[in-house]
């Protein structure tokens, strides 16, 4: 009995000293090694008279636990002391620059196309596409703009052959023709894409972007057209109210035709859409001409509907305050960085079009 008490006292005292990890391990072996002092005592339990055995075992266990705790605490304190000493030395200047990273951007036109698609998606339009190189029939004739029609002068056309039969599409409207020839009505599509006209100055680029819209069904009238565009403009500019003006115009492929202006004003050098008494032309539209429907084998006495064409670049300029159209295609690193969008900013309905 006194043996184990002595062991306890001796080693408790020892463990109170300043010890190194090695020394503690030495103590550990002395006590709990194969022939360690405590281990040997456990082997002795059998030789203890039965009357004392129970108490001895319990005392021994208690002493074992206490010593083990003492050792564990000692080890812990030494280790944390070591870590603290290490931390003391490990101070860095966190204001030094982080490792370099690069950030890509999405072009404002691409972002705007995604915004437009997202808005029209909500009201049931799907996206169609067509080739950049078109034949003269799809681009003009089928759209009720026969050869030798002065309306062809409205489009300065790039031609790819001497017979002027193959050209770069001057608008996205040929996608209407392709879509309607391919399927049966009803049609409800938008078609964003590149378009080309051979003029070039401060406000015109030889290539620009349009989005075509087409909705053909049994009873689609000008009220639906107005409603659709009113909805689109409001959603696109993310405003509650929009001032919009439809005025008569002429396109060979729609009748009646309209141009749409939106109200704006300039406040502190910035354009405010939807207010003010200035008008800005933003799109052309109308009811698809019966001749066009006939050309694509759709019966105009059964089906009717509207089409529209919007300049995407122009919309992007208005929404994001970009002044110069030519800069869109100039590829200036600084401009792309400034007006580009983070690729994670995907326009969606539930998160909103833009942050």
């Amino acid at each position, binding site marked *: 009995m006194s043996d184990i008490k002595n062991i306890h006292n001796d080693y408790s005292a020892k463990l109170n000293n300043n010890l190194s990890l090695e020394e503690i391990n030495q103590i550990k072996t002395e006590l709990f090694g194969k022939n360690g002092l405590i281990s040997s005592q456990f082997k002795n339990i059998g030789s203890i008279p039965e009357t004392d055995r129970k108490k001895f075992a319990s005392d021994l266990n208690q002493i074992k636990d206490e010593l083990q705790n003492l050792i564990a605490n000692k080890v812990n304190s030494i280790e944390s002391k070591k870590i603290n000493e290490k931390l003391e030395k490990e101070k860095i200047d966190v204001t030094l620059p982080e490792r370099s990273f690069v950030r890509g951007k999405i072009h404002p036109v691409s972002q705007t196309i995604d915004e437009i698609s997202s808005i029209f998606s909500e009201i049931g339009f799907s996206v169609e596409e067509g080739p950049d190189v078109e034949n003269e029939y799809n681009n003009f004739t089928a759209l009720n703009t026969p050869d030798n029609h002065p309306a062809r002068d409205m489009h300065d056309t790039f031609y790819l052959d001497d017979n002027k039969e193959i050209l770069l599409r001057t608008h996205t409207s040929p996608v209407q023709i392709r879509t309607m020839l391919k399927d049966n009505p009803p049609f409800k599509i938008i078609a964003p894409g590149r378009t080309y006209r051979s003029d070039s100055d401060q406000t015109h680029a030889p290539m620009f972007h349009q989005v075509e819209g087409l909705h053909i069904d049994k009873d689609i009238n000008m009220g639906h057209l107005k409603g659709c565009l009113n909805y689109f403009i409001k959603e696109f500019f993310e405003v509650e109210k929009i001032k919009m003006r439809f005025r008569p115009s002429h396109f060979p492929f729609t009748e009646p035709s309209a141009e749409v202006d939106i109200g704006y004003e300039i406040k502190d050098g910035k354009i405010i859409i939807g207010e003010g008494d200035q008008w800005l032309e933003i799109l052309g539209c109308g009811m698809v001409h019966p001749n066009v429907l006939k050309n694509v084998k759709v019966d105009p006495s059964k089906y009717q509907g509207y089409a529209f064409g919007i300049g995407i670049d122009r919309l992007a300029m208005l929404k994001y305050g970009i002044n110069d159209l030519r800069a869109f295609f100039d590829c*200036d690193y600084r401009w792309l960085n400034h007006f580009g969008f983070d690729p994670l900013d995907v326009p969606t309905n539930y998160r909103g079009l833009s942050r």
Partner: protein
Amino acid sequence: MKITFDWLKDHLDTKLKEDKLLEQLTNVGLEVESVANLSAGLDLFKVAKILKTEKHPNADRLKVCDVDIGEKVIKKVVCGASNARAGLFTIYAPPGAVVPKSKVKLVVAKIRDVTSYGMLCSESELNLSDESEGIIELSSKKYEKSVGKSYFLKSDSNLIDISITPNRPDCLGVRGIARDLAASGFGKIKNLKEKKIKSNIKQTIKIKITKEKNQACSSFGSCLITNVKNTESPKWLKDKLVSIGQKPISAIVDVTNYVMLDNNRPLHAYDADKIEKGIVVRNSKFGEEFTALDNKNYKLDDGMCVISDNKGVLGLGGIIGGIRSSTELDTKNILLESAYFEPRSIRSTSKKLNLDTDAKFRFERGIDPLSIEDGLNKAALLIKEICGGEISKIDIQRIEKEKIKTIKFDIDLFEKITGFKISTKEIFKILENLGFKIKKEKKYLKLSVPTWRPDISQEIDIVEELVRITGYDKIKIIDPIKERTKSTLTQSQKLFHFLQRAIASKGYLEAITWSFTDSNYNDHFKDKNKEIKIINPISSDLGVLRNSIFSNLIMHMNKNLDRGFKDLSIFEIGPIFTGLNPGEQNTVVCGLSAGKKSRLSWVEKERNVDVFDVKRDVVQTLVEAGYNSDKFFIDSETPNYYHPGKSGRLFLNRGKDQIAAYFGEIHPNILKKIDIKTETLVGFEIFVDNLKIPKKALKDQKTKFEVSDYQKSERDFAFIVNKEIKAQDLINAVSSVDKKLISNIRVFDVYEGENIPENQKSIAINVTIQSSEKTLNDNDLENINNSIIKTVENKTGAKIRS
């Protein structure tokens, strides 16, 4: 089309103010483009009298004039005109006035040491005519009492510029515009009681329209005016033309212009004495020539409508007259032409000859065939009034009678198209005001279309007329229904958008460049494609469609490097063209990366961007898009614009069916030719159309979740192989040993040089081995090890490095 409110009031009775009118013009579809006050500042130009002239002391040709401008002080004006003389009435412009022609603002100036207060004006300087010789001479009788008064009538009428759509030739005359306004309730159209020619004299010049195929002239009206004295136009006529920015020329020309502008009735005046034995209107023969009024000689094709006489072509009907028969100031006898020419013929002739005239612009849109007589009456009588002479009877030759178009119009169509209703009464009122004749039949209206409206031929045109005049603001907004029956994007459209953002997220800025390019640049990148030329490019350096996006991208990369940026990555996703026909195009994602990684970094070692950077961008993007990189196959066959030794070609699988991408360094020869200054330039092209759309939707791609919790072990091997052996071959050999047990293979070292035989290299790989069924024991592992070594050695000729 330029008009003034004053001129409009010749045809329109209205009490409305100009601003209301401007708004209404736009509302009915006659878009007001601009409004300008032409007469602003013109009141400064005053009638003046020269009292005395002296030779300029320092210049032989200049005179110093004392000018009376109706004020107490006599003005000293230096003038170079030879006709400046004492007693002459002329026009004086004070300092501060802006000269209409040059737009120069006058100041008090010293001219060779003599101070000049203002200027004496020539007609040309005031845009009154082309006469620039000498200063204006005003008649002393008329202007004696006007000295000091403004020469120009004060006018509040603005110049209104209206954009007339090509379907509305009738509105190329002031009366047409007035008619539309009246129909929309903005005033009443005036019923002009135009006088008619009363004459017994015969029109003695014989006119013949040949009856031949494609004869573009269906009727030709004319009258002869003899013994005229062509002169300056009277002031009212000059003012009228000047008010819309036209220059008066001579009475005969001014009158024909006036009638054309007033009622869209083009006329042509010939010097009757220069016509040889009558006029024949016929189709031209190939090779015929004539000199037109623009002083250019035109060689004609077959089948162009010409006005000719015995000697040959006089002019192109409805387009331009010829020099040979043109009227001059001393012309005594004139033949006035008023005809109808078919629009398509006018257009094709003028296109072929590249000729654009005011008459052509009007005839190609369609002239009212019934305005022939009115036009002759009005013009001839005006000419007689101004120039004197005798007018003959009107002669009209016709080869076909004008048909009046009729349309059956179902009233219900209006509501069906517009979504709102108007009363039958309103319909009648609008159509009648626009000039339609209406007959009510049982279920529809039978409409006779006014002859000045060539654009109207079917029911839908009537709907447009009605809704345009009623006002588009009456159309009700019908809100769209938020319902989707079809998915917005197709799988391939989704892929397009995914790739676009995936590449951007790797640090590339998206660019959009022209679909056309400089053929010099295109040549570098066109590979085996043929060049596709644009017939009429905007400039020679944008003359071909791009066969590759690299051409434009590298051009812009170079510009950006010149701007002083060193490390940049740009990309574009868009079309490249492989042929001339619609659809011969592919969608490509093309990227370029230049310069270094970690340039001037305190924490990382800087290095040039390299092939493996772009390879990572391509592979990662494809993996993100859903393609399995384990199946990718890569070789080094690339187009000649890539560095032949440092570029690769990627297939989505070993079947090598379609190329998914190229990546690599741009060929150094191209960099040299383009003179691009960067450490390195690497690029890639992903061929979007070649990527098979994954058959499974995302929701189906998620298969059962299975992982192994058994012990895995890693083993390293170093093989010595011939240099040509690719890492891919080694990896394939290893993975072929046991696809179930070998879960990962990494290349962690490639080494050539010391201790390695020449033409050989050492490749070190790390292989992870794990079973999904049990913990592998030493024996199992040993077997696999041996099997790996054996297989690699057999398949690649490698030797394990001991």
